[in-house]
């Protein structure tokens, strides 16, 4: 008789999962759609999990690459209740109580979109055109004019973020010089805000505006996700470093599709472009960032683990610049900066069977795997 299994612990080598951590991809959540109806099916960017395993170099469903995340950890808050009865109080049955989950991670790559996710705020672009009057009214109140009209946009090919494209995205403007746009400029692109309009989620970034609270025509460009760097200018055709990211969170019919571009350059108002120099995330306000998120861990033997959160929102902005130590950096307090974020998984009513869930955890087979056990 062979030696007992429990003493020898044989295992099938292709049943071990060896990966190198997680990578985060996001897509906008349509706040206007999601907040106006009772069904939580409305609003998320639906990721068809049957399309996986996913190619991290060419993600579908307008998922944008937020880079390497560290210390990804989930905290399941779903409860299982117990019904006890009888003289001994034994558990006779169990039932599911509340459903919930929070998760946290650190964004090792630091960018505007990561800040938007981690802070959960409507991040403000700092307009950069020179010669403008300073703001004595508020830190973000200064005018960013001049601007220039946008007449065309192509996202390039492939439409992918943080990687090389064979054809770069372009933005055609009326006059780059008029808006002080030069090669190397950072730009923001969005529609004019019409003073007097208000709502819970206006513009493609889905920012809340109270009645008569905003008079700045640049307000959408100050809050837009559509930012890029100009790498070349040829007859007012701006070549961008990467496609515009985001959008789809605002009005029920978003004006921007990350894969194809803007539906119109003159509607609802004129689309314009302005230079920017950075961004600001405020602590406070009423905006709460909401997204759909897909987290991926590939294994060396080509299996893939995924977490899909149809509706995820900020739980707590833990640190804007959490330090991580750089070894041997000398005697100064030198270190790296990362974004420490915590999220809450919101409800999604799965249309397949009507069950309310918050997360999908998937596993895609590797070749020749014994799938059952």
């Amino acid at each position, binding site marked *: 008789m*062979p*030696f007992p299994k429990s003493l*020898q612990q044989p*295992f099938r*080598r*292709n049943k071990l999962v060896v990966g190198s951590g997680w990578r985060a991809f996001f897509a906008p959540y349509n706040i206007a759609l999601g907040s106006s109806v009772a069904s939580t099916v409305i609003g998320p960017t639906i990721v068809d999990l049957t399309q996986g395993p996913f190619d991290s170099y060419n993600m579908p469903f307008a998922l944008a690459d937020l880079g390497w995340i560290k210390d990804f950890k989930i905290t399941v808050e779903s409860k299982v209740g117990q019904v006890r009865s009888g003289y001994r109080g034994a558990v006779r049955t169990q039932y599911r109580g509340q459903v919930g989950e929070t998760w946290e991670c650190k964004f090792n790559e630091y960018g505007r979109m990561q800040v938007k996710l981690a802070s959960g705020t409507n991040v403000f672009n700092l307009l950069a055109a020179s010669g403008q009057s300073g703001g004595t009214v508020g830190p973000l109140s200064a005018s960013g004019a001049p601007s220039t009209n946008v007449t065309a946009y192509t996202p390039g090919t492939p439409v992918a973020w943080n990687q090389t494209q064979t054809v770069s995205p372009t933005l055609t403007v009326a006059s780059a010089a008029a808006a002080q746009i030069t090669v190397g400029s950072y730009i923001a692109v969005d529609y004019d805000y019409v003073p007097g309009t208000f709502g819970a989620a206006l513009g493609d970034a889905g920012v809340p505006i109270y009645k008569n609270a905003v008079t700045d025509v640049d307000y959408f460009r100050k809050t837009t996700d559509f930012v890029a760097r100009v790498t070349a200018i040829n007859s007012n055709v701006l070549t961008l470093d990467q496609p515009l990211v985001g959008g789809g969170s605002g009005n029920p019919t978003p004006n921007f599709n990350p894969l194809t571009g803007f539906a119109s350059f003159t509607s609802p108002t004129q689309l314009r472009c302005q230079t920017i120099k950075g961004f600001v995330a405020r602590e406070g306000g009423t905006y709460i960032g909401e997204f759909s998120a897909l987290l991926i861990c590939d294994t060396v*033997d080509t299996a893939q683990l995924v977490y899909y959160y149809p509706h995820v929102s900020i739980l707590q902005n833990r640190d804007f610049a959490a330090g991580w130590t750089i070894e041997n950096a000398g005697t100064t307090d030198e270190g790296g900066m990362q974004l420490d974020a915590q999220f809450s998984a919101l409800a999604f009513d799965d249309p397949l069977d009507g069950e309310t869930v918050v997360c999908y955890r998937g596993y895609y087979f*590797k070749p020749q795997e014994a799938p059952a056990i």
Partner: protein
Amino acid sequence: MAYQDAIYSHYNWVKARIKIKNPDRKVAGLLNAQDWPEKPFKYDTFFLLDLNDVSVGRQGFSPSNPIKLRQVQWTWINSGTDLKQGERKPNRGDRFNLMLTMQEELLYALYPGYCEKLTWSLNAAGIWIGDSLTPPEFITWTPVEFHKKWDKESSIGYGAGAVSVQDITDQITS
């Protein structure tokens, strides 16, 4: 073969990538550390030395499928280029740059830190053939640690890049 597969797979993977980075770079072979250096010695050439094996501890040890950390070392020796007649510059003055160049090549070649574990055999023509296992298996290795030594008298430079290859060995049966 079986126990050899991990080392051979690592060697052939890294060798192929060295050739991508620098097609002219010589990769002379795999041998036990105590057999090195061979004579006559080949300068500016990579060798893979097999040092020893360490078993994974309690976190993953299985008597049936021992997980081994195969400690290997990519090794080379640079002497620098001797001056030709009529040249005026420090003799063998490029050895430092050559050492760093080979380090860079090895760093490139060890990417991405894993490869498929193939089983190796000689075909009728005497050529090593690597075949996939069923089901496919993979090996991983640690980030490389470089070590360098210089002999001031001879100007000979000795470079080594140590990695540990994780290998789940074939199942031992009763």
